[in-house]
């Protein structure tokens, strides 16, 4: 366990896992929609925009919750390189949670596309129409999305490394189930 068996709060875990589902869905919706001409293209695009805004809002909430509730400390015996990797990868994950929705929104604005979400909600343009900006933002959105996917995979691999190999309580701190004192690693 982490020192004292401390875990993320229930709210933090709920945010983490619901955002995980949204973000993983976004990778698949994103690559799927740009590679199809089938009728699903239209609802996929609307879902992609709506979910993107939802992720951005949830990320804001999450940052506030994190500032208030903090995080359990990493195990004291965690080697320094792993500790550094843990910190840097989390900055990356947070950064991309904010960056990708904003890049998508800005890209559509620079392409003079109306941004309409499910329910008919229309977002204002955040940039003027401009072909060079559109291209720059399109590339940033596209390539950073794959970087985000790679980072999420690394995050999953690291979580499983903690859960299965180090068995140090780091995974249990964010595990969706299990009570504060009766986690699977405290039998």
């Amino acid at each position, binding site marked *: 366990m982490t020192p004292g068996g401390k875990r993320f709060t229930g709210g933090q875990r709920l945010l983490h896992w619901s955002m995980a589902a949204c973000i993983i869905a976004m990778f698949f919706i994103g690559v799927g929609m740009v590679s199809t*001409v089938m009728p699903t293209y239209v609802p996929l695009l609307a879902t992609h925009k709506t979910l993107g805004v939802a992720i951005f809002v949830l990320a804001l909430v999450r940052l506030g919750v994190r500032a208030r509730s903090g995080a359990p400390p990493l195990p004291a015996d965690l080697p320094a390189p792993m500790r550094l990797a843990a910190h840097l990868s989390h900055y990356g994950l947070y950064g991309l949670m904010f960056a990708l929705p904003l890049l998508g929104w800005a890209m559509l604005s620079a392409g003079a596309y109306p941004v309409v979400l499910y329910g008919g909600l229309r977002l204002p343009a955040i940039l003027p129409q401009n072909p060079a900006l559109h291209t720059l933002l399109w590339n940033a959105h596209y390539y950073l999305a794959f970087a985000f996917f790679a980072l999420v995979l690394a995050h999953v691999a690291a979580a499983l490394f903690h859960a299965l190999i180090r068995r140090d309580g780091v995974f249990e701190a964010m595990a969706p189930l299990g009570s504060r004192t009766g986690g699977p*690693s405290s039998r």
Partner: protein
Amino acid sequence: MPLPPSGPRSTLASLAVIAAICIGATGALAYTAGWLSPDRLTPTKLVDALAPPSGPVPGYRRNHAKGICFTGSFAANGNGTALSRARVFETGAHPALGRFNLGTPDPGAPDTTVRVRGLGLQITADDGAVWRAAMINAPVFPVSTPEAFYELLRVPASKAPNAMAAFVAAHPEFSAFGAWAKSPDWTASYAQEPYNSLDAFLFTDAAGAEQAVRWSFRPEAPPERITPEAFGKRGPASLEQEITDRVATAPQRWTLVLTVADPGDPTADPSRAWPEGRRSVEAGTLVVQRIEPEADGPCRDINFDPTILPDGIRVSDDPFPAARSAAYARSYDLRTAEAKDYPKRTSEAAR
């Protein structure tokens, strides 16, 4: 008490599990992206197939590449509110911009070589909702499905003998469009052409009732028929000069006619016209007030994506608007990245 760290054998098994999850997730993403399905019809393939033998012309739309911008308004008469709650149908003048164009991937194609003339249109309602459409003068679309359209685009590159005859035999629906394309009824003006949605869209009224609708912008200017030969004598780019001169003299008008499907009409197949006598509603008048060259014009960087619709209009079971949206986006992404190949005139002059 924490469990002790795992032993070497179970560590190896755990690493294998972790690797399998990462590889599986990457494979699933690759599959979804179509990287493992070379036969999937992607927007990239569709757009690449549009290119002329000499290759695409960078900086321009990948199809309907030759065009000229206009601004004006859509004067709604209120009748359209019987079919759709979209604000654009409420009585009043709604700002419009658009583009007259030729259905060719070559912006330098002579006017006489292109039978299909198009109208890209954007109407903005006072609540900010945007309606975009891309219409053509043909009464029907050549084929029933996006897949068949892709096949049609690949016919010229085919080495098979009689490839076109074989295509027509396999796609009998092509005959209606083929007959129209061969007909000698040309006009010498963008202002004398009708522009048809061809695709069906679902209109939702204020009570939530839905009906399938196709629409046409019918010209107020009476069509003056001209043979292709006589038209050819006017020069390779007479249409743009003609519409510029004509609109400078007087605004040009089209009546928007909404045609409602009867139950059983083919809403999913734009190659099949609906029978005559369907309920139709005249919803207002498109007034074209000013023509501007495309290079610096307001239509230049607009993607006339037919799925950009206001509340009150949505896509139907017609598969084309989605396919067109996907392909238009690809074309837009390509040409905005090539903007330097199609410089603006003002910025050129300023340098």
